C-alpha cells in the first residue's frame, strides 16, 4: 500500500508542477527575469559606487582581521539560533492545509511525504543566503584588500552555508520536537559561544570558523574547513523531517496561506499580525507594570502605554535588538560605508511598526474609533506620542551600541547620537503611521494608468521616510570630512527631517479627516 501511495504522491506532485508550468506565461517570465537581472546589476554597481571607496587603513585592517571572523560567526550563530527558534515553534516547513489533512494522514511514511518540501525550502534558503553573502562580499571588496571575485565567492559560499544552517537547524528542532524553551536555550548557547569567541578573540565555535571562511580573501582558507561541520545540520534535518508535529504543521499551513496573500498585496499590517500569530506572540495577560496616574486625562496616551506594557518579552527583545542593529549599521556608515545608513533606517522602521500598535489597533477596528466623540485626526495625532517616546528609547540603545563599537567609546558618539535620535525616532514613527494609514500597497480595486505608481509610492514611502530620519548622521559625517563640527552638519539636517515629518503627518491627518 505504501509503495502505491508513494508512487501516487510522486505522480501527483509531478502533475501539479506540470500544470503550474503550463499556466506560466513564459514570455512574461523571461521578461521579468531579464528586467530583474538588469536592475540587480544596476543596483549592485550603484551600491558599489556609493559604498565609499576609501580603503581601510592598516589599523582598521588589523581590527577587521581580529574581529571579522568572530563577527561573521556571530551572524552564522544568529541564523542557527533563529532556525532553532523557528523549529521550536513547529517550523520551518510551509505546507498547504490539504497537504496536512490529505497527504500526512495517508498511510505513507511522513519522511517521504515531507522530504521534497524540506529540500525545496533548503534550496531557497541556500539561494537567499548566497545572494545576501555575495552582496556582503561585494561591499567588503570595496574597502578591504583582496580580489573582487574572491570576496564575492567567499561571501556567496558562506551565505549558502548560513542559509542551509538556518533551515537545517529549524528542521532538526522540529523533527526531534524540542520545545520552545529548550530551542531558545540551545540557540542562546550557540550565540553565547560566538560571543565568547568575539570577546576572547578566540576561534573555538564552528560558527567562528565559518566566519573565517567569509574572510578568506585576507585570512586564507586553511582553517575554515572546520566550519563545514555546520553542513551536518541540513543533512540531519532531512533525516529527521518525518518527526514534524502535524498540529504545528496544520497551524502553520493555515497562517502561511494568509501570509502569502498578505505579502502579495504588500499588506504590512496583516503580515505583522500573521507573523505574531505564527510565533504565538500574544500580549501578556498581566502588564509588566500597571499604568498609574488619573484615568481621566490623556486617555490615548494612557491606552497606548497600557498596550506597550503588555508586550511579550520576545517583542521587547526584538525591538531592543533592532535598536542595536541600527547602532551597528550607523557605526559602519560613520566609519566609511555610508550606504548602511539605509539599513539603520529600515531597522528603525521595523521597530516602529511594532511601536505604533495603538494606532494600528484603531485602523484594525474602525467601527470602534468612528463611534468616539472626537475627530479621527485628533485621535491619530495623539496615538503618535507613545511610539515616538518608545522609539527614542530604541535609538538610545543604538547610540549605546555605537558607543561600545566605535573607537572613541560612548563619549565619542553621545553628542551626535542624541541629536540624531529624535529625528530618527520621529521619522520612523511617521513612516510606520503612513504604512498603517494607507493600508495594503496593492489594492485590486485601484485600476488605471496610475495604479502601479500609486502602489509603488505606498510601498516605498514608509521606508524612504525612515531612511531620511537617519540622514542627519550622514550630514554630520560629511561635515566632519570637511573639517567642520559634527553638530554643525547634524543640526540643520535634523531640523529639516523634523519639518518633513511634520508635513507628512499633517497630510496623514488631513487624509484621516
Amino acid at each position: 500500500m505504501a509503495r502505491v501511495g508513494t508512487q501516487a504522491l510522486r505522480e501527483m506532485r509531478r502533475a501539479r508542477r506540470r500544470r503550474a508550468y503550463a499556466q506560466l506565461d513564459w514570455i512574461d517570465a523571461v521578461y521579468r527575469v531579464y528586467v530583474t537581472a538588469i536592475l540587480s546589476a544596476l543596483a549592485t554597481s550603484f551600491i558599489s559606487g556609493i559604498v565609499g571607496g576609501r580603503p581601510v587603513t592598516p589599523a582598521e585592517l588589523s581590527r577587521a582581521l581580529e574581529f571579522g571572523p568572530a563577527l561573521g560567526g556571530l551572524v552564522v550563530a544568529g541564523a542557527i539560533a533563529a532556525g532553532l527558534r523557528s523549529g521550536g515553534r513547529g517550523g520551518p516547513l510551509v505546507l498547504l492545509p490539504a497537504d496536512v489533512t490529505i497527504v500526512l494522514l495517508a498511510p505513507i511514511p511522513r519522511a517521504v511525504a515531507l522530504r521534497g518540501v524540506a529540500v525545496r525550502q533548503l534550496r531557497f534558503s541556500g539561494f537567499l543566503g548566497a545572494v545576501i553573502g555575495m552582496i556582503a562580499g561585494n561591499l567588503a571588496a570595496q574597502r578591504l584588500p583582496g580580489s573582487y571575485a574572491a570576496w564575492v565567492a567567499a561571501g556567496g559560499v558562506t551565505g549558502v552555508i548560513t542559509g542551509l544552517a538556518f533551515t537545517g537547524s529549524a528542521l532538526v528542532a522540529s523533527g526531534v520536537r524540542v520545545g520552545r524553551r529548550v530551542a531558545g536555550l540551545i540557540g542562546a548557547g550557540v550565540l553565547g559561544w560566538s560571543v565568547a569567541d568575539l570577546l576572547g578573540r578566540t576561534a573555538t565555535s564552528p560558527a567562528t570558523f565559518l566566519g573565517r571562511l567569509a574572510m578568506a580573501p585576507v585570512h586564507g582558507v586553511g582553517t575554515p574547513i572546520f566550519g563545514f561541520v555546520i553542513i551536518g545540520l541540513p543533512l540531519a534535518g532531512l533525516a529527521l523531517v518525518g518527526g514534524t508535529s502535524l498540529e504545528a504543521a496544520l497551524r502553520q499551513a493555515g497562517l502561511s496561506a494568509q501570509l502569502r496573500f498578505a505579502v502579495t498585496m504588500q499588506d504590512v499590517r496583516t503580515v505583522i499580525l500573521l507573523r505574531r500569530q505564527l510565533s504565538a506572540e500574544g500580549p501578556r495577560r498581566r502588564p509588566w507594570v500597571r499604568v498609574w496616574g488619573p484615568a481621566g486625562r490623556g486617555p490615548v496616551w494612557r491606552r497606548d502605554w497600557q498596550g506597550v506594557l503588555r508586550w511579550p518579552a520576545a517583542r521587547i527583545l526584538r525591538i531592543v535588538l533592532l535598536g542595536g542593529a541600527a547602532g551597528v549599521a550607523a557605526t559602519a556608515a560613520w566609519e566609511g560605508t555610508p550606504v548602511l545608513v539605509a539599513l539603520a533606517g529600515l531597522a528603525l522602521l521595523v521597530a516602529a511598526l511594532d511601536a505604533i500598535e495603538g494606532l494600528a489597533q484603531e485602523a484594525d477596528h474602525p467601527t470602534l474609533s468612528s463611534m468616539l466623540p472626537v475627530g479621527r485626526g485628533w485621535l491619530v495625532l495623539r496615538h503618535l506620542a507613545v511610539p515616538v517616546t518608545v522609539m527614542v528609547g530604541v535609538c538610545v540603545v543604538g547610540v549605546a551600541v555605537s558607543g561600545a563599537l566605535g573607537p572613541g567609546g560612548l563619549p565619542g558618539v553621545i553628542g551626535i547620537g542624541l541629536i540624531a535620535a529624535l529625528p530618527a525616532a520621529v521619522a520612523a514613527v511617521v513612516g510606520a503611521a503612513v504604512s498603517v494609514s494607507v493600508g495594503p500597497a496593492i489594492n485590486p480595486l485601484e485600476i488605471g494608468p496610475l495604479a502601479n505608481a500609486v502602489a509603488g509610492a505606498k510601498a516605498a514611502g514608509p521606508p524612504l521616510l525612515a531612511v531620511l530620519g537617519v540622514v542627519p548622521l550622514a550630514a554630520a559625517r560629511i561635515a566632519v570630512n570637511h573639517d567642520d563640527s559634527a553638530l554643525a552638519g547634524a543640526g540643520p539636517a535634523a531640523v529639516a527631517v523634523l519639518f518633513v515629518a511634520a508635513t507628512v503627518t499633517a497630510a496623514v491627518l488631513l487624509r484621516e479627516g
Partner: protein
Amino acid sequence: MTVLEAVDLVASYGDHVALNGLTYKVRPGSRVALIGPNGAGKSTFLRLAAGLLEPTSGEVTIDGFPAGSIEARKLTSYLPDTPSLYDDLSLVEHLEYVARLHGETDWEDRANDLLDRLGLTDRAQDPPGGFSKGMRQKASIAVAFVRPFGLILADEPFDGLDPPSREALDSLFAEAAAGGASVVLATHHLEIVERASRCLAIDEGEVVYDGRADTAEVARLVGTG
C-alpha cells in the same frame, strides 16, 4: 472488539484544558454522535483520534495501533470541519490522488458513484477553488469517502449542506456503518443524533452522557433545551 479506544485522554493548550481524562470505546459498525456546546472538546477529540494532535497524557488507539501511526492512518478517514482542498487539482483528480495514496487502484467506479450521489458530476473536472462553501463541503465529503476505511471521523459534516446533500451524506454514513465501519461525527443537528446508535455528550472536556438520546435529551445536553 474495539475500533477506537481512548484512555484517560487529556489535551490542554496552556492553561486551557480541552479534554480532561476522557475514556471511551467505539465498536465496529457503530454510529456515534458526538455532541456538546461550543468549546466542549469535540473537535479536539476527533483531531486526537485522527492523529492530527497529540495528547498531553493518556492515549488513543485505532484497532490497537496508536492514533497517527501508519497502521491507524490506513483505517481512519478524517473529514475536517473546514474543507482542505488543492486549488490546482480538479475534483476528480483529488479523488484519484486520495484513493491511490491509500493504495486503491480501482477507484473510478467508487468516485463516480460518490460524485453522482452528492450531485457533483457536472463539476468533476473543475478545481474546487471556484466552488461555493456547500460545494466545497461536498467535495471534501467525496474525498473522505473515496478511500477504504474502517473508521470515519467527521467534524460538523452537515454544516453548509442543502437538504438533499444532507440526506445523501446521512445515507453514506449509514452504508458505512452497515458495512462494518465505525462512524464518529460531531454535530449540532438533532435529527442526526437521533439516528445514531450512541450519543456521546462532552462538556468542558469530560463525558457527561453516553447512550442513546432523543431530541429532548440532546437539546438539554447541548444547552438549547
